[in-house]
């Protein structure tokens, strides 16, 4: 790796200086002259008919400049694929927190006062807030017009189940017939919020010529542009989206929220309008991770060989499904784990209920699947009296195997990843005390696909610009784009500039998400840089008197200069090469698009926990995380993704749950909804496993999402190892542990079977 110039190195991030000084501008920091403050009025009911809305009293309040209801906005339905979300509720509200009106006023206090002066008469209607009931009940429909919605993968009518996905391989009845033992269990996971520190923010300004400028905390500026243009009914060129730094995303910043309301309020008031969601609004009406009920059934031979596997998942989608770009969740496909199983059937059911709509949250669907599958693997190992590592090792996918859903992945290195994790952890070593436990879990997730364009420019002074509309919600992705260009052009990082630019000033980029930026945006930068390098060499060949047809082989680059490989003293600077073609700059634009991924990335996490059986308190002491990354362009950034994903996953395992009472979220604050604090963070040992080639530049794979998947089951398995009770309903709270210990009839100091010792 020492041969590399700029990649494979933990270079400092290009944006960290502006972030440690407070200079970095986020959307809520932008203020315009004459700007108004917008707020939304929200439904207090899970399901009701809006009989009438009277805004007269609100409009009469001094300082109020605009009030809007559904009557003032387009009746278009919004969605990233399935279109079912109204801009403001029209006639009917479907969850507590749904927006029914909005106001803009000279300050926030006036806007808040105005909300209370909007008079709404509701007629409450019967509601469905339990996903099992909603699945069965056909007398109450969350969307009676679902059959008319665009974007439905398969037509459905008169049902709350808007999508049923299946994946099959082989014939499970045949598989179960061969099995010596059959295991079955049900797991549940709650809704959890992405927990980004920056809440959604938006601002819209409409110029006299009708051109619309949008500031948005969204991570996908080009999607904001197209959705806004569609709503307003103008060509996309009339909408310019200005990105700011994004204060965390984790899947929650891919859809527009208050941007359309800002537009309509601004149009009515004739002044720019900014809306910033409160933390409470985030919890009532964000787009969190779906809760799930997952049933697993496995047919196993006494030897430990997995022969049949059935999985079904029920996801509570809430009142709307438009926040999911694929309608379903990719995680459904992960319900067969990372194992060689000949006969598999997976069913995923997505159900409307009268609760807050769910969306994408870091590895959509994967953490739920991973928790169920990897907890289940330990239960199977327990039933077979096998070591949990051994059971996994025996069934682990190897090169040439088909995935549980029948995909032929290239370069499977799961065993290498497992082996690295086990060797670096305390697996198999004596436990320091009685209630110390260790647990293992594996997961996989492919690099994301998509479309990006980028421009790379070498200027007459030898400096380099990258123009890319990609976003970096904190991952370091845009630093990595600079490293890629620096590597190709062999110029120091300091000479490369990549600014945040608006949608008029950059070519199209699909935006961050799905673990695609390093691969897709990375390839566009990589290819554009190669093209620029080719042109520089062509120019330099004339100065260096090198035959043009051989120049690409005979000339190389280093530190911003071109030189003859045969005689490195003969060289020209990039600036000379640019000027030699009588131009001010040499530039190239490349578009890269990919929709197929032929490999995946594996991970193994090993968690070590200390449990206090009296109080049920679990402390995660140490996590060893091995990740297949292909090639780490920026190892520190990759570690940062893994460390952050693990601590987020520990929250999913032990703390986080959006509690509901009849559909209403009852813990909508960061005091009652617990994220991990500094005191919950364990020691994390990260192992970056390189070598299995990925599709990204320099054979890189993705790392953003997978780290949050295997950690929860690793913790659950460690808790079982420590105290001998299995919690299959997240989060694993002290209350559940104490109750389970009592019910299991075990004394508080009993423990599960020794497992590490057998390896």
């Amino acid at each position, binding site marked *: 790796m020492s041969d590399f110039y700029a990649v494979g190195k933990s270079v400092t991030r290009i*944006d960290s200086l502006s972030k440690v000084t407070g200079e970095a501008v986020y959307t809520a920091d932008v203020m315009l002259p004459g700007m108004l403050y917008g707020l939304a009025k929200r439904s207090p009911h899970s399901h009701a008919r809006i009989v009438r809305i009277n805004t007269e009293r609100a409009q009469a309040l001094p300082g109020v400049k605009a009030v809007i209801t559904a009557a003032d906005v387009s009746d278009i339905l919004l969605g990233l694929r399935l279109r079912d979300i109204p801009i403001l509720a029209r006639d009917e509200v479907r969850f507590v927190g749904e927006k029914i009106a909005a106001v803009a006023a000279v300050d926030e206090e006036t806007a808040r006062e105005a909300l209370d002066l909007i008079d709404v008469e509701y007629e409450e209607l019967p509601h469905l807030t339990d996903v099992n009931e909603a699945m069965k009940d056909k007398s109450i429909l969350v969307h009676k017009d679902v059959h008319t919605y665009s974007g439905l993968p398969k037509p459905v009518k008169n049902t709350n189940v808007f999508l049923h996905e299946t994946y099959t391989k082989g014939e499970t009845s045949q598989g179960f017939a061969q099995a010596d033992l059959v295991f079955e269990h049900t797991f549940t996971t709650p809704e959890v919020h*992405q927990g980004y*520190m920056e809440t959604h923010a938006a601002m819209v300004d409409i110029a006299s010529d009708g051109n619309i400028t949008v500031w948005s905390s969204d991570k996908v500026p080009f999607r904001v542009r197209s959705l806004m243009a569609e709503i307003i009914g103008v060509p996309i060129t009339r909408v310019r989206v200005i990105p700011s730094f994004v*204060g965390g995303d984790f899947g929650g910043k891919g859809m527009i929220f208050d941007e359309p309301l800002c537009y309509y309020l601004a149009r009515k008031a004739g002044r720019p309008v900014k809306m910033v969601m409160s933390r409470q609004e985030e919890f009532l009406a964000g787009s969190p991770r779906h809760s799930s009920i997952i049933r697993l059934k496995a047919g196993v031979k006494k030897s430990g060989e997995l022969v049949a596997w059935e999985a079904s998942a029920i996801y509570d989608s809430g009142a709307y499904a438009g926040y999911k770009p694929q309608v379903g969740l990719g995680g459904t496909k992960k319900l067969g784990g990372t194992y060689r199983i000949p006969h598999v059937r997976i069913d995923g059911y997505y159900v409307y209920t009268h609760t807050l709509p769910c969306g994408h949250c870091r590895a959509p669907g994967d953490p739920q699947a991973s928790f169920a599958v990897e907890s289940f693997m330990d239960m199977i190992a327990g039933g077979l009296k096998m070591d949990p590592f051994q059971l996994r090792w025996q069934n682990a996918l190897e090169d040439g195997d088909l995935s549980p859903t029948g995909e032929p992945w290239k370069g499977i290195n799961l065993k290498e990843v497992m082996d690295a994790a086990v060797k670096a952890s305390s697996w198999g070593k004596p436990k320091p005390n009685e209630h110390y436990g260790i647990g293992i879990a594996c997961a996989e997730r492919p690099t994301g696909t998509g479309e990006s364009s980028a421009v790379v420019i070498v200027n007459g002074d030898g400096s380099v610009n990258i123009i890319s509309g990609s976003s970096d919600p*904190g991952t370091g992705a845009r630093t990595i784009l600079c490293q890629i260009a620096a590597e190709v052009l062999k110029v120091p990082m300091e000479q490369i500039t990549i600014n945040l630019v608006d949608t008029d000033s950059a070519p199209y980029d699909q935006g961050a998400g799905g673990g695609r930026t390093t691969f897709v945006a990375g390839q566009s930068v990589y290819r554009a840089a190669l093209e620029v390098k080719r042109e520089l060499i062509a120019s330099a060949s004339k100065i260096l008197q090198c035959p043009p047809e051989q120049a690409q082989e005979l000339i190389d680059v280093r530190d911003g200069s071109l030189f003859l490989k045969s005689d490195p003293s003969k060289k020209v600077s990039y600036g000379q090469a640019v000027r030699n073609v009588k131009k001010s700059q040499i530039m190239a634009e490349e578009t890269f698009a990919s929709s197929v991924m032929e490999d995946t990335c594996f991970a193994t996490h090993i968690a070590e926990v200390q449990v206090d059986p009296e109080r049920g308190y679990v402390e995660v002491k140490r996590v060893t995380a091995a990740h297949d990354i292909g090639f780490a362009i920026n190892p*520190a950034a990759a570690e940062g993704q893994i460390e952050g994903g693990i601590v987020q996953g520990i929250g999913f395992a032990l703390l986080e749950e959006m509690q509901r009472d009849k559909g209403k979220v009852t813990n909508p604050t960061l005091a009652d909804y617990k994220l991990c604090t500094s005191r919950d963070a364990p020691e994390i040992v990260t192992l970056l496993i390189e070598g299995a080639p990925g599709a990204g530049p320099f054979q890189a794979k993705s790392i953003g999402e997978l780290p949050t998947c295997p950690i929860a089951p690793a913790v659950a398995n460690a808790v079982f190892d420590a105290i001998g009770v299995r919690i299959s309903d997240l989060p694993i709270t002290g209350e559940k542990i104490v109750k389970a210990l009592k019910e299991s009839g075990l004394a508080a100091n009993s423990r599960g079977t020794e497992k590490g010792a057998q390896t």
Partner: protein
Amino acid sequence: MKIPVQLNVNGETYDLVIAPYRTLVDVLREEVRLTGSKKGCDVGDCGACTVLLDGKPVNSCLVLAATAQGKEIVTIEGLAKNGKLHPLQQAFIKEGAVQCGYCTPGVLMSLKALVDHNPTPTPEEVKIAMAGNLCRCTGYTKIFKAVETATRQT
């Protein structure tokens, strides 16, 4: 009704006329126009708005701006001195302790308060000092490392 309030922020005096119910974070962001202090919850749960008030870290969303008169307020914009970054800032950059950056100003202010009183804190003291500052990106790991780096230098 608005009242005159004089605030001392990062050594500068600001004469403001503000509504008495306005919080320090709002006045810093919207009147003084220092937007480095972030709002993540507005009720004292997340720590993104942490500033120093007479050297002590406070959630500026829980402080009425008028009550900060006569006190020395230091925000993230006042952490670097004469163009030189504070050792904590330098270490955050070096160790990759910054991701989305939204919690970073608050975290840095809590840690500055710690190292001002305790130049060589133990890992446990660091964890306690910033337990009121939520970070969703980093898992805190590289923040701990950055504090270690910064305090080793001082």
